[in-house]
């Protein structure tokens, strides 16, 4: 079974990235590597290099915002699409957006690369659920 090796947040809203990182830190015990990107392009570069570096049975968990400057979430997905299967197999992508527009939800469910659409804010219950599926130890003083 594959396990999560690190988590990447891509959102132009810095506060959101900060909050998300904290929630993850409070929820899990193991020291997963966390990275946040305000500019999607930088995030993409990082994803590409990391995906090629990590072991075969490891995964990178990505939380991707939809509405961002220059490259929005959908455009980021298009670029990942072009990176090929070797990269795809190492990614676990969740859309994390403030949007309550059903169209965004539908679009996410139609995209093969996306596991799920999550409405902001990221809650510890969602983190717990994901981690459970990938055998990541959970913090004792969780809710």
């Amino acid at each position, binding site marked *: 079974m594959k396990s999560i090796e690190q988590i990447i947040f891509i959102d132009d809203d810095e506060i959101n990235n900060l909050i998300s990182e*904290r929630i993850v830190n*409070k929820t899990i015990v193991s020291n997963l590597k966390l990275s946040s990107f305000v500019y999607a392009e930088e995030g993409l570069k990082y994803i590409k290099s990391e995906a090629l570096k990590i072991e075969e049975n490891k995964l990178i968990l990505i939380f991707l915002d939809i509405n961002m*400057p*220059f490259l929005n979430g959908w455009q980021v997905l298009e670029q990942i699409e072009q990176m090929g299967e070797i990269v795809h197999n190492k990614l676990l992508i969740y859309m994390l957006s*403030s949007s*309550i527009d059903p169209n965004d939800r539908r679009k996410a469910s139609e995209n093969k690369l996306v596991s799920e659409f999550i409405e902001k*804010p990221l809650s510890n219950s969602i983190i717990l659920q994901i981690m459970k599926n990938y055998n990541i130890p959970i913090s004792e003083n969780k809710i």
Partner: protein
Amino acid sequence: MNKEKQSYKFLLLEENPDYFTIIQELLFEKFTHPLVIRAKFEKVTDFLINKNNPFDAIILDLSLTIKRGKEIITDLLKIAGNCPIIILANTRDAKYCETYINQGVADYLFKEEITSTLLLKSILYAIKSNIQNQKIIQSEIELKTTQKAAKVGTWQTSLYDFSSIWSDEIYRILGEEKKESKVSHQHLLRYIYPTDLHVFKDAFTKSLSSKHLNVIHHRIKDNSGQIKFVEQRWKIVRDEESQPIYAVGTFNDVSEKKRFQERALKIEAYNKDILKNISSNIAIINSKGDIIASNEAWNRYSIENGEPIIEKTGNGSNYFKVCQDAWNSGDVSALKVLEGIKKVVNGKIPEFVHEYPCHSPEKKQWFAMKALKVSNTDKNVLIIHQDITPKKIVEFENEKIAFDLTQRNKNIEQFSYIVSHNLRGPLANILAMSELLKYDNVNPSDMLPILKGMSNAAFKMDDVLKDLNAILHADNPSSETLEEVYFQEITDIISNSFKNIIENQNIQIQTNFKEVESIFSLKSYIHSIFYNLIYNSIQFQHKNVTHKLEIQSKKTENGIQIKFKDNGTGINLQKNKERLFGFNKGLDNISEDKRIGLYIVKSQVEALKGNISVKSTVAKGTVFTIEFKIPLL
């Protein structure tokens, strides 16, 4: 004298055989092998009954008394048909012999003086004059036929005793049996329609002292009771002392002609009435553009209205020139109209239609001009200006409803987008941070950033709510009507609301609305467009440079153009052009509320069927160009 070559056939009625021989010899002297048949008068019928073998002449020896001779001649004329009769008379009394001529014989000779030459001359004369008589008879028959076809009869009335001779056709027109004898002038009066009687009587009396042709029209009631229209023409014939002797004239049944004329007149009158009473302005121009006919509405409009496209457009003026003049004086559609009409004239298009507003200070009006060929063979073109105001008003109402609905839809879209992204974003942050605060082991050092973040998010939400409010207020066109919006007035109001910023930061707003000072539009929309573009410009000031914003209006071919030009920081259009007016996040260094502002501008310009474009150079400035079509909708 040469012998006559032709072989003639003669019937010689002679009792005396000796004298028969003498005459026969005389005939043989001058004619080649003449056939001379002798008959007794009692037997003459047997010879003449065979019509296939007629004689060239009948020679009758009349040795009897004149009284007896007359009877014989009468009997003979009845059976002789066309054959001429020559009398050989015992007497030398020419006066008696003339009576034979009056009876109908061709010629006579005195027996005592007879020679072969005289006989030859007489026979030839008789035959020749007979042929002429035949011709006269023939032409009389033809005349009668012509009279019948033309329904023209002829009459002659003696002014001594007022007796009349009528041709057959008059009898036919009156529906009366033909009489051989003369009729009285009074007889005709019986047929004349009672109320027309004085017309005829007066005219006839008057004509007696006139030298000219007299013409009258009157009605008659024929024997079957049918009313007919008659045209009479006559002239008075006078003797050497200018005394009227008789009147001759024609009697013409013109009922059919009259009916036809009346119908034609009626149709013409109807057509005139239709043209006169129709409310559309109608004129006909020839291929050179000269107005050759126009209806009353057209002329009335020309007089009442000062509209350049229609003024001075009475009969005789040139419509092409009118259009040309209108174009020269600034009517932008006049050239299009001129070209359209010329295309119809040249047969390139079957018709040309152009709708245009023509507002007077009292009321708003719209017209449709239609140009079409009068007929396929005619080069002339019908120009119709029709008042389509009611139709336009309905159209506007429909468009307004459609416009309102579209706008409402857009508002809902905008609203859901703002709620979904701009409002939900900061709210999500507040929710997340409040979640963090629930943990027991929050480091005091973590508290401050969380509270700061929450505060920022709350302020952001407040900004978005203000924008949302502005959008919902501005986008309420249903409660508004179109009005004349003056650009300077709008600019002044907005400048005043930014008074502090403009004064503190020394911002210059220069306007030039000389070419177009106003627009017939929705005031709140124009206000919002100006507000957002002015606000946007102020936000993008270049540091260390006095910020200048120039706003000016211009006339274009289809409407008007408004330009907002500044010397601000500019926008990198290569990166951002597509998303500049979009509602997506994605414009570098432009904060959310400004993006909403440009989105509002774009949606409102488009709602007014306008167009907005942008040109910009980084560090040099930005130009927003708005174009509206006139008429607005």
